[in-house]
């Protein structure tokens, strides 16, 4: 309530400022907002814009969307050319490049005080702060969880989802089926570094086996350690030792799970929508299993909103107001209800209705201990882990050697990116 009042007061001040600046004409201000096209996100944003315009009748927000595949290229080309939006949605991993190229401006400290953001948002959002100023803020975040197939669990007489990695392996073994020749026809657990497993390995398994994936703000690779090797051996052992998974099974992990040929599947909250409509699939979801010593971890990623350097004068003031609204608790609840993406504020996420929600709950609870990898080049860094496993599986390389090779390759990449 107090916060809302503060928002209202802030809004009033800023709009007054805008009005004074534009005193003679008191013209209608129009700002441009860009995001990529995903139907639920567009619907949610349309609703947010409608609410925002109702509260600020002198501001009009135009939303433009682009196909996901083109989005990064389009924004990258349009903003420097001055053709772009005033408020733009970016993947958190692109932030460095955008700040360096001075394409986005820091959020004003008065309207977005860092202390308050640090206190109210889930901790991984702090990756968006540079030198005491936030450059961007998310409306919603994503995390990982373990999906499981209720029908297969019942058929194998398993009471409930696993709590620990050991239980997970045990259950996966009970769910794995093979044909007469020993070929897997149903996996206990899906796997594939090309899907979400590289996040699971990097931010979850390495930590659960007692290590740190990176140090020095993700500039130094630290997983070439005993813990890293233990994590790799565990992951590789799922197929090599326990035989409860197969990386290429049914082409893609999510395909195997949707087809009901996989007992368990680790995936992000963005998969909920796709699974919800699947005919004949009865699934549940639980937090990622805890490690040998009970450590829990998770990986969170998100899309952020930022004000571009194009916004000046009254457009800038309008953009600040708009940013304030789309990162407000109200907007986050609308986003969760419409898109199914998790609120970025702890105060919204951790209310019982959300934290105990049968589907969103496990993801939201995971946010409390989630980490966000600061990538220099996500696809290249993923590829390094993909190849780490391929060298072991296809070329019979020793896991420790493969791990060291991957760590060296990733360090080279990070050094080149940070210009060291």
């Amino acid at each position, binding site marked *: 309530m107090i916060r809302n009042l503060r928002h209202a007061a802030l809004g009033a001040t800023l709009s007054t400022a805008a009005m004074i600046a534009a005193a003679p004409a008191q013209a209608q201000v129009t700002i441009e907002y860009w995001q990529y096209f995903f139907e639920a996100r567009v619907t949610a944003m349309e609703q947010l814009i409608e609410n925002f315009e109702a509260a600020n009748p002198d501001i009009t927000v135009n939303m433009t969307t682009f196909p996901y595949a083109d989005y990064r290229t389009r924004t990258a080309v349009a903003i420097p050319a001055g053709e772009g939006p005033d408020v733009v949605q970016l993947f958190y991993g692109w932030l460095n490049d955008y700040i360096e190229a001075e394409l986005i401006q820091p959020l004003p400290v008065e309207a977005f005080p860092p202390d308050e953001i640090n206190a109210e948002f889930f901790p991984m959002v702090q990756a968006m702060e540079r030198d005491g100023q936030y450059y961007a803020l998310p409306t919603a975040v994503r995390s990982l969880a373990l999906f499981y197939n209720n029908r297969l669990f019942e058929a194998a007489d398993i009471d409930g989802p696993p709590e620990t990695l050991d239980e997970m392996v045990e259950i996966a073994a009970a769910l794995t089926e093979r044909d007469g020749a020993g070929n897997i026809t149903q996996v206990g657990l899906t796997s594939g570094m090309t899907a979400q497993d590289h996040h699971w390995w990097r931010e979850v398994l390495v930590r659960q086996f007692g290590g740190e994936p990176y140090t020095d703000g993700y500039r130094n690779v630290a997983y070439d350690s005993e813990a890293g090797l233990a994590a790799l051996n565990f992951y590789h052992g799922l197929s090599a030792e326990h035989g409860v998974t197969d990386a*290429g099974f049914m082409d893609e992990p999510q395909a195997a799970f949707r087809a009901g040929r996989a007992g368990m599947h680790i995936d992000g909250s963005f998969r909920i929508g796709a699974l919800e409509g699947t005919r004949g699939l009865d699934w549940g979801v639980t937090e990622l299993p805890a490690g040998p010593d009970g450590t829990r971890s998770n990986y969170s990623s998100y899309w952020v909103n930022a004000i571009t350097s194009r916004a000046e004068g009254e457009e800038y003031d309008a953009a600040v107001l708009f940013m304030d609204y789309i990162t407000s608790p109200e907007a986050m609840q609308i986003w969760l209800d419409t898109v199914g993406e998790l609120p970025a504020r702890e105060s919204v996420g951790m209310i019982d209705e959300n934290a105990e929600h049968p589907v969103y709950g496990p993801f939201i609870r995971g946010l409390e201990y989630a980490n966000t990898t600061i990538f220099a080049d996500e696809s290249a860094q993923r590829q390094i882990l993909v190849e780490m496993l391929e060298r072991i599986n296809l070329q019979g390389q020793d896991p420790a050697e493969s791990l060291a090779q991957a760590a060296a390759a990733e360090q080279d990449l990070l050094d080149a990116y940070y210009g060291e």
Partner: protein
Amino acid sequence: MSFYRALSIRQKRTLWAWGFLAVPIIFYVVIRFYPTGNAMVLSFQSWNLLGDREWAGLANYRVLFSDPVFWQVFWNTFKYLLIGTPISLVISFFIAYHLDKVRFAHGFLRALYFLPFMTSAVAMAWVWRWFYQGVPIGLFNNMLASVGIGQVEFLNSTTNALPSILAPAVWAGLGFQVIIFMAGLRAIPRSYYEAAEIDGVSKWTVLWEITIPLLRPTIVFIVVFSSIGFLRIFDHVFNMTTNNPGGPLNSTKPLVLMIYETAFRSFDMGYAAAQTVVLFLILLVVSLIQLRILRDS
């Protein structure tokens, strides 16, 4: 106007000719030559699409030539060419030679061979990708399993993946090559064959001494055309290995895919431009060599 009137008819004709020629020339300069030149300049710069372009000198090329992945990709690109071109040439000639003699349902058969060429490469690549999976979903492996033969890793193998991806690419291109070969066969004057028949020459001799030598221009065209196609192979590889582009372990990655990844996944535009320049030079040299070899003698 008086300037125009003062010209002779010959000069007027020249003027008109250049006037008409100017349209395609301007078109080519703007949409072909300018971007090509720009890419060459960019190959000496460093640019991530966002900031300013910065001069990098030969750094992009230095990184490229010392990158083991580049040399692997370079060699892969030639594998596509060296395996794909002869195989598709022989198969398409074989089909065209025999199809040319078939009278029954000729048009229908020809249409069947042409059909894959008109199909979208993306759709085809995905269907083949699923054909290649293991049990329980892969067509080929299910067939093998039903007769008790062990599984073959088609795509998840550093040795089998490249031929597996090449097969649908060859198949897709056959239709076009068959049509070109048939047109070439029809263009050989009947009188040579009649003369050979009168002389009582064997079928093999007719093939080696008349048909193939007279098909030389057709063969040159197909070899150059399909070589360029295989050197630029992209859609099949990209779609059959989307989750791990050019994998496993870069064993199927062609140069074009490496360029695409550098440019649109890593956003390292200068480095991608340097790779493009290398591809351009390869295409140029290969085409010139082929034209020389196949035209001489």
